């Protein structure tokens, strides 16, 4: 007698629980479809670029080979160019920087390039820069302004006298 009554209570309780949550399910299907469409749209812009590379190699072997070759070509060119700076021994990259807004040309010469002129590049506000790859060691050098005037580097590690009273800059790498 008691058992059917208990089942009724249980069934009624579950029904009330489900009905209480029904408002959460309203429009669920539409919301899911909307989210899926958004994701597809976001990925679509990039997937157009990547699609050729995602095609299995077996279907486009020439394209895959050419892509690989292009990657190697770019890496090779970067290595060949010393990654943006002249290489004077394959060492640490050292920046030479000097401010000469009025100068027409600035070069640096020193022990590291057998006292030949390496040009600096003019940047904003007349700041001249160049990056050289130098092996560890001690180097004397000097800047040359407009191809004639030798000046020391204000950022040097130290200065030494050379040829009478002239000053050479010194850098420790």
């Amino acid at each position, binding site marked *: 007698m008691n058992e059917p009554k208990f089942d009724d209570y249980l069934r009624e309780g579950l029904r009330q629980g489900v009905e209480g949550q029904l408002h959460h399910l309203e429009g669920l299907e539409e919301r899911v479809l909307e989210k899926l469409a958004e994701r597809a749209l976001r990925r679509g812009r990039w997937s157009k670029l990547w699609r050729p590379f995602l095609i299995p190699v077996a279907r486009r072997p020439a394209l895959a080979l*050419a892509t690989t070759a292009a990657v190697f*070509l770019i890496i090779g060119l970067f290595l060949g160019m010393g990654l943006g700076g002249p290489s004077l021994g394959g060492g640490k990259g050292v920046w030479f920087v000097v401010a000469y807004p009025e100068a027409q040309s600035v070069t640096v010469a020193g022990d590291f390039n057998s*006292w030949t002129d390496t040009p600096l590049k003019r940047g904003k506000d007349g700041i001249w820069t160049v990056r050289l790859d130098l092996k*560890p060691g001690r180097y004397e050098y000097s800047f040359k302004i407009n191809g004639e005037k030798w000046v020391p580097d204000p950022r040097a590690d130290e200065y030494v006298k050379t*040829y009478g009273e002239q000053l050479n800059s010194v850098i420790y790498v």
Partner: protein
Amino acid sequence: MRGILLTVLLLALLAPVGLLAEQQPQVTAQDVYDYINYTLEVSAQTRAVLLQAFHKGFEEGALAPERALSFLRRVNASGAPIELREQVLLTIADALLKSVPVEMLLSKVEEGLAKGRPMDEILAEIQERKLTLEGVKALFESKGFRAGIELQIGSATLTLSVELTGLVITDVAGALEDYVRSGKDPTDSFAVYQEVLLRLQRDRSIPPMLTEWVGANIRPEELGRIAQEIAARLREMR
């Protein structure tokens, strides 16, 4: 499409060839001898000395042929009187024959030429510095510091190469020269000694254990004596 693919492929295959072609061909000792024999404007007697000296330098590994050739070309093209050019080259040759490191001397000649200094001034500069290098080399050799030997420093051992001995001797000689030329007191042996050790410490091409060896084996008064000799020579030059 196929044309573009083939072009990219071809470029990638040719790039290493292009990069290799861009590099300078390797200079050999024979190239230097040929230059001395056929191009360099010097007397027959000087030519013979230069050939002997550069041969010794290459044999000992004191100098690379590429470095030698670029230096000889630079001196030859300087436009200075031939006698002075010969004197400069004979100073370098004498250093090579005595196994004195030459890098500082080559660099001072190149610096002088770049800055348009007269060749007689360049000659005086390197003759003075060569004597300092000789003095430092003799001092270090008297303590057993020479290429090819094994230095025992504490529990560690280091085999000295020609390059390393050259770097140390050049650094010590350079520190002594700079100390005296900056107007500091050459009779203050301890200050001279400290300057030399500081130079070695700061130069990262010198292993720290070699600086330690110099500190333990070379006495301040020995370096002070060389500094005073430099000061005397510089007084004579002025």
